[in-house]
Structure formats: C-alpha cells, structure tokens
C-alpha cells in the first residue's frame, strides 16, 4: 500500500513537471511585448528596459524555464503585470474563496446526486424517476454561465431573494481568520450573522457550479443502483428478510458507488474548470476570476500559476478517487 502511494506520488510529480513545461511553452508563444505591457501606458523607453530586466525577458528560453522552475520550487510564481503583486500573494488571497465554493459545490453535488440517484432507482418509473431523468440529461447540457446569469436575474435582481454576488455584504466584516473559509470560521467563532450572510452568498454560485455534476452523478448512480438492485445477491438478502432500507443503504449503494466515484472524480475536474465561469458571473473573488482577469489582460504569470495549482489539485483528487476504490471494493489490491 505504501509502495502504491509512493508510486502515485512520483507519477504526480512527473506529470506536474510536464504540465509546467507545457504551460511555460504556451506562455512564451504569446505575441506582443510583455515588458511594454508591464510598464504601462505612460512609460518611457527607460521604464520599459527596467521592467525587461526585472522579468528577465532577454534570456534564452531554456534559461528562462530553469529560473521559472527554481522559482516554482520556492513557491514563487512571478509577478502579475496587472495587479503588480507577487502572484503567490494574490493566490493566497483568492484561493480560499475558490475552495470554499468548490467544496460546497461538490459536497452538494455528491450528497444530492447520490440521493436523487437512489430515489430515482428505488421509485423507478414514477414521476420522481422521470423528473430526475429529465434533469440528469439536461443538466449537463445547460451552459453554466447562462444558468448563472438567468438565476441571478430572476432570484437576485427581480425577486430580491438572494444577493447578486460577492462573498459577503459590503458592510459585514469577514469572520476571524482561522481557515479562511467564511462558513467554517463563522461557525467556529459562533458568529451567526456572518454565517447566515456567507451562506446566502455562496448558495447561488455553488448551485450553478454543481449543476452539471449533480446531473451526472444522479444519472450514473441511478443506472448503477438499478444494475445492482437486480443482482442475485440482493435477491438473496431480500429472501433472508433483511430490511429494504438496509439493503439499499448498505449493500446496493456500496457496489453502485464504485462507478459513481469515477464520475465524481471526472466531474470534479470539470468543476474546477467551471470556476472561471461561475466566479466571473457572481463576482466571486477566487482564483478563477483572477485567472480570467489575467488571461484577458495577456498577463501570464497568474494564468500559469492557476493552471498548475488547479492541475495539482485535480491530480490529488484523482488519487483520492483511486484510494476510494480500495475502501469500497475489497477486491482491489494495490501493488
């Protein structure tokens, strides 16, 4: 088991290095003069030279890559042209917001996806099932940004039910910094007002972000549950008089979860990508929003950094998915 972990870990490192090479090459392909961009509209030739030295833009490509990698190992992702801050500072600021949103969304998608999947399978061919099936098929096809702006228009602008965007109301001070997750921090410190406010703000973006995942998970869980529920061993358990609830919850679900887990892993990746859309629509101050602002500005360092960080996160998530198989399926052996 330990060897498996080590092997996977090594493979993650190698993949990460490969990713950094690709991302680096992409950034250097860009047309335009990055030094001029960085210097700003009123810059003189002198000012441009200073920036050129600061960013080492004169060195040959492999040299630039080596210094970039050295920086990465130190956690130095360079400096953003747009915000003028170190990218690592900006990321430290914005990362918690994204992860709070993503965790909330995936938790929501998993919990309700599995629930709807079970309900849909158990109550097959009733209106519950039909509703869930329609949802699970259309949910993946709905453009996330469109859903976001439509809900924003209806629920926030027209009916004033929910806030338009951001993490908190302007006048509410964020809770004491412990985890930097507003929901957690406000719960820990017992700050009920902030908790309610943060919850109302995260609701719509999380819902939109989770939508396609929710649909896919519902779908596959339903399909798997149906498969399993008709298997022989279930028949056996029913004959033995075990309660239906227990059968569903313990035996059927455990088997159905394996392919569902794969889907969860896949959808998590799409969700990470989806943050760039949802954060833009809801003014959520996370790294997705940060990356979009940078990409539109031809500001590379942040885009590279966000790609690598979210890439790493996805790889780790996949590792967890693989370990999850081990938990769910005792037949799985790791070499």
């Amino acid at each position, binding site marked *: 088991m330990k060897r498996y972990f080590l092997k996977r870990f090594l493979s993650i490192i*190698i*993949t*990460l290095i*490969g*990713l950094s090479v*690709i*991302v680096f090459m*992409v*950034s250097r*392909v*860009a*047309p*335009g003069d990055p030094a001029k961009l960085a210097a700003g509209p009123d810059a003189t030739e002198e000012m441009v030279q200073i920036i050129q030295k600061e960013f080492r833009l004169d060195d040959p490509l492999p040299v630039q890559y080596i210094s970039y990698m050295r920086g990465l190992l130190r956690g130095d992702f360079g400096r953003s042209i747009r915000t003028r801050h170190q990218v690592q500072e900006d990321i430290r600021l914005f990362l918690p917001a994204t992860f709070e949103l993503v965790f909330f969304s995936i938790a929501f998608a998993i919990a309700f996806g599995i629930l709807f999947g079970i309900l849909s399978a158990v109550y097959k061919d009733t209106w519950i099932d039909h509703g869930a099936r329609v949802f699970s*098929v*259309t949910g*993946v*096809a*709905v*453009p*996330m*940004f*469109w859903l976001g*702006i*439509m809900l924003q*228009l209806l629920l926030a*602008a027209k009916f004033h039910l929910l806030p338009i965007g951001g993490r908190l109301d302007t006048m509410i001070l964020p809770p004491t910094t412990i985890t930097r997750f507003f929901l957690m921090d406000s719960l820990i410190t017992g700050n009920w007002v902030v908790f309610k406010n943060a919850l109302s703000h995260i609701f719509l973006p999380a819902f939109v972000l989770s939508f396609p995942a929710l649909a896919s998970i519902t779908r*596959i869980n339903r399909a798997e549950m149906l498969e399993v529920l008709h298997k022989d061993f279930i028949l056996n358990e029913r004959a033995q008089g075990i309660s239906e609830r227990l059968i569903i919850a313990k035996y059927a679900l455990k088997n159905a979860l394996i*392919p569902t887990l*794969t*889907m969860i892993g*896949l959808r998590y*990746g*799409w969700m*990470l*990508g*989806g943050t*760039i*859309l949802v954060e*833009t629509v809801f003014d959520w101050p996370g790294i997705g929003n940060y*990356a*979009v602002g*940078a*990409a*539109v500005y*031809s500001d*590379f360092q942040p*885009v*590279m950094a*966000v*790609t690598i960080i*979210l*890439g790493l996160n*996805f*790889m780790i998530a996949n590792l967890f998915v693989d370990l999850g198989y081990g938990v769910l399926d005792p037949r799985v052996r790791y070499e």
Partner: protein
Amino acid sequence: MNSINSIWARWRVERKSQIRGFKLIVYTMSRSPLSVIGFSFVLIFFVIALIGPILITYPQDVRGAVHMDQKFKPPSSLHPFGTDEVGRDIYSRVIMGTRISLQIGLLIIFVAMGIGVPVGIIAGYLGGWVNEVLMRITDIFLSVPGLLLALAIVGALGPGIKNAMLALSIVWWPGYVRLVQGKTLSLREESFVEAAKSIGASKFRIIFGHILPNCTSPIIIKASMDMGMAILFAANLGFIGVGAQPPIPEWGAMISTGRNYLMNHWWMATFPGLAILITVLGFNLLGDGLRDVLDPQSRI
C-alpha cells in the same frame, strides 16, 4: 439501366450483414424516445446550419449592418427574437450562429481525432517505451481541467475564434488517444490479429484493416458526445471574451453582450442560451443512444 440495377444489387449482397447491422441500430434507437429526440435535435441543427441563409430574414444583420434606430426592440412578428444593441435581428443571428457552431464543433473534433487516433493506435500497437512516453504525455494534458488549459492557450495567443478552436483541439485530442490506445491494446491480443500476423500481413494492413475498423464504434460515440461539449466549451470561451469576436454571431459571445442589457432586454441572452442548450442536449442524447446500441458494456 440494367447495369446500374445490377451494381446496386451486387452491393446489397456484398454488404448484406453490414446493412442488417445498420438496420438493427436504427431499429433499436428508434425504440428509445430519448434517442429519437436527440437524433431529431441534431438533425434540425444540421439542417439549419446547411440551409441557414434561406431561413434568415435579415441577412445583412449577420454580416455587420447596424440600425441604431431599431435597437432593443422586444420580440415581435417582424423580429421573433427581438433586436440587439445595434438593432440587428437576433433570430437571423441565432440561425447563422448554428452554422458557426457546427463549423467550430466539426473542426475541433476532426483535428482532435486526426491527432489523437493515430497517436493512440501507434501507442497501443507498438507498446513498450513508445507507449509509455506517449501515454505520459497524454496524461499531462488530461491532468488539468480542459477549460483552464484552453483559457491559458487562448490567453497566450490572443482572443479570436481561430485561436479558440486551436486551443480546444489541443484540449480534446488526448481523450481520443486514451480511447483508441485502450482499444488497440486489447485488440492486439485478439486471435484474428494473431492470425493476420501469422500469414504475413504488414503492420499497415493490420492497423487499417483490422484495428481501425474495430475502433470506429467507440470513436463515433465519443465524437457524438464531444460535438456537444466542444460547442459548449467554445461558447464558454466566447462568453469570457476570448472566443469569437464581433460581428461574428457566435452564441456564447451573443450571451456575453446580452448580459450587459439583461435587466431590461431579457431576449438578447435568452435565445442564444436556449440554442446552446438544445444543441448540446441533442448531441448528448444521440451519443447516449448510440452508446446503448453500439457499446452497451461501457460505463462512462
């Protein structure tokens, strides 16, 4: 007349089993209402894309004409989807957007297949270190969420529909590599390949004659589902502002513009959004239907 008839008759006899297989596919699919819906949506999509210019009512609005006095008119009989911020007919633009989306989708999928399938076959067939290296490289591309990679690439190259399509092709090809490599790997061990090898068939012949034809089903299924997703991703990039640029009537870009005026002029963003939804849904349902028929064992 007679010779044509006999050519047709001969063709029917030679391909008898394939014709039957095709008929089976059609029959099975027509039994599933969702597949029928999917197929019809896709069919409508293709038809609109092809005959678009006949259907539109204001052709000049698609090419760049502006009518400042007509701006922001709500849906009416003259303009079923209303007009936009420079007075253009949205219905015409949404219809022509179908053509744009089709082009985008097809191009991305074909480029992705064009690179991915050969690489996958080579990797699967040759095995060994070639396989290791190629799969590692593929894994790198698959390790990062697609939309992010696309954003990074378009961010580097600059906004525009061509760059967006290039970026999305780069995001999509690894999927085909994985699919085809897996299939090739398993096919390699099949007895008919052994048999072909033993009678001295060249690698070339084995690949094109035996392996590739057996990959077509999974490729078609994947391509069908990918069409929808590729169009969706292109719209995502268009929405952010790095995809299609004005005055190209791409759906995502239209929603992005429409968003600024959403509160008072809801029609600008709604109709293109519905168009995306219906198109993607159609391809997804079609892909599902095909999978149920062609490859019922597969899960994802």
